[in-house]
């Protein structure tokens, strides 16, 4: 999106937190300069000149930082007033809104996307993407999630007065065991779909007139530690996971510390992320056509 209205696409990013001061994920923009060139990342400021920071929904509390970190912004004109607004996901899985003002500015104070007075939410790591999915003229809300999969909230209001449905599942969360469970699998042959900490982008990727889904994710690939055969590593690691789980439930910090050091003798862990394309199919009974690449 063109945040500053200079005719060049800009890159908008969230961040997990910031160094040196109270935890909060600033919103960063790399302004486009044309011809595929961009400027350095700079914090996005509100109309008060200060960096935009999500204010906790319920004021300061023990966990209010969850409203402020792990931000993921999306710019769209949510209320049809001609100004881009910022919808920002966070660690908690809720969605803050910084209303757009004229001149490419944004309100310093945020509000929240709500339904019946309660915040819209996904299971951690809110990741908003707004698009008119049902082609009724208003923007619907989509999100990845820390637990994987993707969710959506239909805009059942209007272009200028959004209102939201209950949360619906768009893509089911992965059923793959996580890397710290006793049934964890080695290698990556079993990674056949989006895993956890998903980030969503919706677009007609293949040009057939139907919106498709791109999901980025994060996952851990296990390999036997040096000197161990696969079968032995699998057996010993399964036992290690059980012991670690028991120590965690007992809150035995000494055992957890010891076990964590032993882990390196059993497995090598490599975490990474992929991007997955989920191509939408026509409704049942409709004829499928392939369009031109856009």
């Amino acid at each position, binding site marked *: 999106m063109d945040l500053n209205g200079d005719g060049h696409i800009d890159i908008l*990013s969230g*961040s997990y937190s910031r160094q040196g001061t109270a935890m909060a994920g600033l919103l960063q923009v790399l302004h486009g300069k044309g011809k595929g060139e961009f400027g350095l990342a700079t914090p996005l400021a509100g109309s008060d000149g200060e960096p935009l920071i999500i204010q906790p929904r319920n004021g300061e509390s023990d966990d209010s930082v969850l409203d402020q970190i792990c931000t993921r912004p999306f710019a769209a004109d949510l209320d049809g007033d001609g100004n881009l607004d910022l919808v920002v996901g966070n660690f908690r899985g809720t969605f803050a809104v910084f209303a757009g003002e004229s001149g490419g500015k944004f309100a310093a104070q945020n509000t929240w996307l709500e339904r019946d007075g309660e915040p819209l939410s996904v299971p951690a790591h809110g990741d908003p993407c707004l698009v008119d999915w049902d082609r009724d003229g208003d923007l619907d809300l989509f999100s990845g999630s820390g637990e994987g999969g993707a969710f959506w909230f239909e805009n059942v209001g209007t272009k200028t007065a959004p209102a939201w449905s209950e949360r619906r599942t768009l893509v089911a969360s992965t059923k793959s065991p996580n890397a710290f469970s006793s049934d964890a699998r080695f290698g990556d042959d079993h990674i056949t779909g989006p895993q956890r900490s998903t980030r969503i982008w919706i677009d007609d*990727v293949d040009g057939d007139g139907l919106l498709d889904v791109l999901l980025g994710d994060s996952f851990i690939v296990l390999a036997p530690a040096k000197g161990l055969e696969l079968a032995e590593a699998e057996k010993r690691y399964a036992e290690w996971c059980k012991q670690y789980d028991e120590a965690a439930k007992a809150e035995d910090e000494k055992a957890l510390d010891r076990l964590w050091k032993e882990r390196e003798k059993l497995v090598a862990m490599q975490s990474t*992320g992929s991007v997955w*394309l989920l191509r939408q199919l026509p409704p049942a009974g409709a004829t499928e056509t392939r369009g031109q690449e856009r």
Partner: protein
Amino acid sequence: MLTTVCSAVTLLTPATCPQEPTPPRFEAAVAIATPAGPVRLEQPGFAAPCLFDVDGDGRRDLVVGQFAGGKIKIYRSTGQAKFAAGKWLEVGGKPAEVPGVW
């Protein structure tokens, strides 16, 4: 009287019942790959994809943010939803970094 009562009654038929939207259907997920192999990020991952035409050739490129260093990789479109090997987005000759990602 009877006419008035009939006109005041809404017949509940399938056409008038409020319906949940039909859930969309998708093909099985396919990992985006390039001639250099599947898209794989530096540790710890957390891929954040989007599509836009970076180089102005009329085709939307795949742009993927990652957690490590807040770096961004661009996979230029080669047409038909296919992409070339990725290169880091650079500013001033060095990979651009979004601060505070880690």
